Every structure is written in C-alpha cells, then in structure tokens.
C-alpha cells in the first residue's frame, strides 16, 4: 500500500486530497468552535440553530460512545499511514523534501495547533459561556475538551514528523 502511494499517481493524488481535506476539516472544526464560543461571549447569536450546534456535536462524538472512540483512533491513524504523499519522489522513492501537499499539510497543522491552543484556552477562560452552551453537562464538557486535546496532540505530533523533528 505504501509503495502504491509512491508509484501509483491515482492512489497518490487521492491520498493527498484525503489528507489535506481531513486536516482542513479538523482545522475548520477547531476554528468553528472558537468562533461559536466568541460569538456567544459577544452576544452575536440571535437564535441557536442546529448549525450552531454542529461543531459541538462533532467534537462530542469521539468520546461519546465506545464505537466512536475506535473510529476516532482510525481517523487519527490514517494521516500517519499516508504521510508518504507529503514528500517529493525521486527514483520511485520518497525523499526527505516536502512537496506542495507537505507544505500545505504543515501549514494546516501549525495553524491548527495554534487554533487548538486558543480553543482550549478559550474553553477555560470563557468557562461560563462554554457551560451555558452545553448546559452544565459534565459528560459533554469532558468529551469536547478531550477531543480538542487529542486533536492538538495529533497535530503537534504530525507536524513534528513532517518537519523531520521526530523520527
């Protein structure tokens, strides 16, 4: 499989799209949480809709049920498994130089790490608004906080790996 990621142009391109799309999705989720929390604090929310609640629902999901935790782990492992698509190829072998996908991934990971840190800090600083959003539900609060922490950990680990700081 790993060899196909290097040699098969279709598989390689598909994996690159999935990777960048996944990293984009994770970043957007962190960003949406931050925006939602800030909007609530600044009283910019006129009516709570299902769209407002979508980031919270997704963030709760990985730690909501046993099956969900398993799927979250799988989703976290995939980018690591397909990391070969982030490097340039020479003689059908990946080099240590990052290609465009690698650069975009690093950018998304670093930005995501920053956003994740701010999101976790905001969840602590704006505790009352966060509590109001989830109605003092401890299970939901812990699930969301754990997901944010897990995502931050994944982004840091993967960024370090892509930057060659972790072998």
């Amino acid at each position: 499989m790993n060899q196909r990621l290097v040699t098969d142009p279709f598989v390689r391109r598909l994996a690159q799209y999935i990777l960048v799309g996944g990293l984009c999705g994770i970043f957007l989720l962190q960003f949406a949480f931050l925006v939602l929390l800030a909007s609530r604090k600044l009283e910019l929310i006129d009516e709570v809709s299902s769209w407002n609640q979508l980031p919270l629902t997704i963030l709760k999901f990985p730690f909501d049920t046993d099956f969900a935790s398993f799927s979250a782990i799988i989703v976290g492992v995939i980018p690591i498994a397909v990391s070969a698509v982030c490097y340039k190829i020479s003689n059908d072998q990946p080099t240590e130089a990052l290609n465009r996908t690698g650069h975009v991934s690093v950018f998304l990971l670093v930005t995501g790490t920053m956003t994740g840190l701010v999101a976790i800090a905001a969840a602590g600083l704006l505790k009352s608004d966060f509590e109001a959003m989830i109605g003092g539900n401890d299970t939901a609060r812990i699930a969301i906080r754990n997901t944010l922490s897990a995502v931050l950990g994944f982004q840091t680990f993967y960024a370090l790996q892509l930057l060659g700081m972790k072998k």
Partner: protein
Amino acid sequence: MSIRAWLFLLTAALWSGCPVYAGQLQTGIKIFSTGGQQVSASVQIQAADLDLTSVGTAYTYKWKSSSGVLALTDVAVSLAAPGYDTSVYSLDLPFYWDSAPYSLFGVVTNDPYDDASVQRFIDAQSIDRASMTDIANVFSLHERSVRLFRQRKFIIDQGASPLPCDVVLAYYVVFSARELADRRNVRMDQTTEDAQAWLLGMINKSPPPRCFRKAGVSAAVIRTISQQLSLSESTFYGKLINNLDGLMATDFDTGCARAQTLLTIISGLPDDEYQAATAQNAVHLRTATDVALCLATKFRKQQKTQEPFANADVVTARKALGALDTLLPNAQGAEKKNGEGRRADLQVYMASSSNGRAQ
C-alpha cells in the same frame, strides 16, 4: 323503621339545613421526561386551615372554621426518581372556591438547559389564548420555564452572556406567573421575582442589551405584566372583599364572620405586605366598613333583647372603628360616605353599651 334510622334521618335533615363550608380540588400531574424514562408521581396538598381528604386524584376539603376566608395551601409533588425536578408552590385558597372544583397541577421535568435545548423549548411553546385556556398548560409552562430560567440565570450570573432565548424564557416565567396568580392565586416564587427584576433591569437600560432587542419581546408588555404581578395580592384581596359582599347579601351571618376574619388578617399583615395587599388601603377600608355594618346590626339586635355585647365583638368593633378613623380622612366618594355612615352607627351602639364605653 328503627329508632336508629329515625335518628339518622333527623341528623341528615339538620345537616342539610346547615351551610357546608367545603370544596374540592382536582389534581393532575404533567411529566416531561427527555430520557423516555417511566416516571410516576402524585400531587400532595397541605393546608393548616383545611381538613383535607384525598380520594384518588381529587382532594376534598372542609374549612376547619366556618369563618375561614383564605387558606395558605402548599402544593408539592412526591416522586421517587433521581434527576428530575418537581414543582412546589403555594397558593391562597379563598372561601369562594367552595362553589366549584378547582384543578391544580404538579409538574415533573428533567429538561436539559443547554443553549440548543432552551431554544427548542422556546420554539415548542405556544402561549396563544387557546392553549392557555387549559390551566394544565399554564402550570407546565410556568414550572418548566422557572426551572430552566433558574439554571440559566445561575450560569449567566457566573459570567455567561445571555442569549435572546433566555429573555424569552424569563418572559414565559413572568407571563405564566401572572396567569397563575390571576386564575389560581398562586404566590410569586423567588425565580419569578428574579426573572421580573432581570427583565426590568434590561428594559431600563438605554439602549436595552442586544439579547433583549433580538428576543422580540415587547418592553411595554413586560411592564404591564410586572405591574399586574405587583398588584396580584391586592387584586386577590379585592376579589375576597367582593365575594364577601356577595356572601353577606345571601348569608349575612357567615359573611360577617368571614369579614371579621379578613379584618384580623389585614390588620396583622406586616407593613410591606399590607401595602401590597390593600391597594392604597381600599380593601382595608371596605372590610372595616363591612365589619362595622355587621357589628352595628348585631348590637342593635342584642340591644333590643337587652343581651350584653360579647367582649370579642367589642374588641373587633374597636378594631374596625380604629381602622375607619385612620382610613376615612384619605378616602373619597361613595366609599368615604358609606364608611362614615357605618362608623356613626357603630359608635352609637358602642357609646350606649357598658362594656363598649370601657377603655
């Protein structure tokens, strides 16, 4: 027919001629369970001035005293399920409820209070005239919104920003409290007072906070409801005296006994409650006038038969005359004229009586 049967018939005949100071309260329970859990609960009623008997979901009551005017009645829900909140409230049961059964509802709920759930609750409620005709809906709306508002207000006090749905929630609290005060004499609870103060605080800001402007709740309506809530106690006492006047027209003695009780209650009210209950002393003046009329009538009869006035009556007469002396200078119109006439009548009999002249 045996002697026992004759005695029974005689007793029944005697009883049928006596007025029965009794009534019935129908109880119901409304359960809102988000987890789909099966919950069973029942409504419990307690009142020190009433003899209560529970028959299924109904309570029949008898006044312990035939001169009872209002009975503070506590309603609670007994429930054996964790995670639920139940309604607890107090109401003033007036003597004129004897004429028809009144229904009281208990509410059991575990509504979650996160942003989305509160918004869903708001969206699902309907407070149109048709739905509010059913008193069960008013109890449900009040108890559920009170519970949610209490929890939301706690978080808001901790620093969370209020949303427009919180404003609507507070509006539901005061709206339903007004309905319950008007239709069931339910006393205002602390959460309703908090909701009222919170809403008035927002209205009085210039401009009102964004959440209030976006909530679509009218400031004028809130002011009106708030005013009605503030006057609910005096409205209740006003109904009491109106019904007492009606009772005196049909059953003078019972009406008089109850008017005397009402005068004692009003005279014993603490200052803040007195002002809220008497509507600028109008209720107090009418009650004192009624009592003066009652006692003057009674003294006239007793004077004819040369029967001495009872000390308790003399004490009550002094109380009524004292109230009239205080209240009449500030009264106007027919109330003043009527009061002065009754005071003059009563003063004549008090002056002619040996124990009336004493002190």
